């Protein structure tokens, strides 16, 4: 039995809910050797910055239990090269593309949005708020609702209305719901969570930090419980705002977990490093799980775990009856 896997980011329809996570799919061309990128919901780019960035020194990555710690430091070609080389490559192939942007000031985010405004092939704009605010002693925007809201408002103001603006949140905050609410209020059409919580690992042989950058972002299944919790809390507080859920998704079961918590789109990051074509496998597994639970439409299971414990799930047959 086939399932209608279509989903929506604001008014933008995606063929299915599986997308790549920012910074985990290279420029797209690398993954295209392993599977047809047109078959997933969308590809998310790395966070594009104004200038080219060489990133952090190596070592940049270390393994932790069921996790990965990375200190890449947003290495990338800068917005000019992105617009002349990477985005056209994706657009020519009709690959749905969520463009992620990263900046050091509110003005820089706005400038990036302005540059992307007329570019063909931008399905949605994801604002990576986990960047240090160089005007506030390097405090990360995402920590705090007001700083995040300021960035979102500035980006929303310049970005064309038909491109959804997605605010990407971090779990490293006292209250993710208040940050989410601030972003939604200031114009975010959708929210995306979670970015990597800050972690660290020390090499007990050299007795020094394992990453050249010292601290790094933690990803992978280790953080999935944090991701599920964040999606759950934000969905409970803001049931009408679409959520892109991510964090440690390796299988269709994991994607389904985030969908039950309230995500309508699920991004796959670290799993791509292990299995380059994992997106398609996860999509297939997810579809099988949804079908096995008796549903014909993905839309019917989004946030389903929020129903009261006693209530039975709205079942395919119930649905058929009610549609008569």
């Amino acid at each position, binding site marked *: 039995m086939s399932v209608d896997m279509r989903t929506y980011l604001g008014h933008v329809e995606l063929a299915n809910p599986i997308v790549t996570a920012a910074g985990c799919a290279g420029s797209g061309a690398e993954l295209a050797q392993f599977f047809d990128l047109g078959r997933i919901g969308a590809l998310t780019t790395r966070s594009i910055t104004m200038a080219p960035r060489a990133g952090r020194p190596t070592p940049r990555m270390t393994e932790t239990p069921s996790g*990965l710690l990375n200190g890449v430091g947003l290495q990338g070609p800068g917005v000019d090269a992105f617009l002349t080389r990477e985005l056209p490559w994706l657009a020519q192939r009709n690959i749905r593309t969520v463009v992620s942007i990263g900046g050091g000031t509110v003005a820089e985010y706005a400038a990036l949005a302005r540059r992307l405004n007329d570019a063909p092939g931008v399905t949605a704009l994801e604002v990576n708020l986990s960047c*240090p605010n*160089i005007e506030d002693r390097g405090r990360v925007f995402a920590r705090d609702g007001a700083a995040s809201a300021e960035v979102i408002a500035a980006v929303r103001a310049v970005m064309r209305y038909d491109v959804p603006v997605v605010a990407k949140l971090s779990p490293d905050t006292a209250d993710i719901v208040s940050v989410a609410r601030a972003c939604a209020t200031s114009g975010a059409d959708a929210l995306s969570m979670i970015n990597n919580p800050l972690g660290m690992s020390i090499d007990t042989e050299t007795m020094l930090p394992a990453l050249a950058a010292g601290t790094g972002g933690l990803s992978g299944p280790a953080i999935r419980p944090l991701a599920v919790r964040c999606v759950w809390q934000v969905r409970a507080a803001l049931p009408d705002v679409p959520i892109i859920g991510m964090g440690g998704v390796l299988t269709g079961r994991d994607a389904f977990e985030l969908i039950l918590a309230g995500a309508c789109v699920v991004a796959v990051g670290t799993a791509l490093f292990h299995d380059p074509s994992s997106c398609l496998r996860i999509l297939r597994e997810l579809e099988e799980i949804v079908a096995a639970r008796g549903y014909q439409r993905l839309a019917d299971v989004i946030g389903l775990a929020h129903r009261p414990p006693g209530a039975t799930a709205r079942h395919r047959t119930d649905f058929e009856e009610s549609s008569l």
Partner: protein
Amino acid sequence: MLTTRQVDAYHALTVVAPRIAEGFRPGHFLGVAVGGPHTSMLTRRAFFIHDVKPDYGGTVEFVFAVDGPGTAWLAGRRARDTLDLVGPLGRPFPLPRDPVTCVMVGDEYGSAMLFTVADALQRRGCRVDFVLGGASADRVFGAMRARRMAETTTLTTEDGSLGMRGRVTDVLPGVIADVRADVVYASGPMETLRRATAVAVEFDIPIQVAVEERMACGIGVCMTCVLPVIGDDGVTRMVRACVEGPVFRGERVRFDDVGTIPFDALGAPGGGSRNVS
């Protein structure tokens, strides 16, 4: 499905993998999943392909030293276990058009990947000489096979237990001079590649090195494995060893700056771009 054997200090695993064997070119490597289902180890381990055979539709063999938990797990695999591989990965060695004289420099397990290169060179009529080394006799890989196929084979060990006492790069100048080498192919630890490159530069001959940088994806999407390499345009970029390498022209690699972002690299902090994260 695999078979396993121990070779001195190393383990060699042969795996039936027709598609990888078919696409193989000398210099390619594999990404090997470790730990089995529900493991806590997420990243694939990278290993150079040592050999490829047509048996069972195509097998690949790789050679490794036990280093940490992933390689320890691999060493515990038994015959007929299955292994999850991705490959072939990386940019293979460019081969010369003309029948030139080539010195193959292999240090520790780095030697294992040189034999298919040497085969290909010989098939093109090249003369091949080997310099193989390691910390001790049991860590010099492939001496017998080198002796069988090469014009000359020079061995070194740091403890003097086999061949000359010292490093491969200590004897390399002599070998290059003796055989009038046209080109060097080198594989081993970064420090060995750095020294070998210095020797080749001294002799003003080209050198191809296969670098080994920590990798997480092996397919070019994670940006873990970068090192500063000078491009054709003279600009230094932080390039990915897994897709732009692992094979580079030695003199293009800024060995002294590996582990740093050179101030003049494209996108370096302060180099006109702001440091956003």
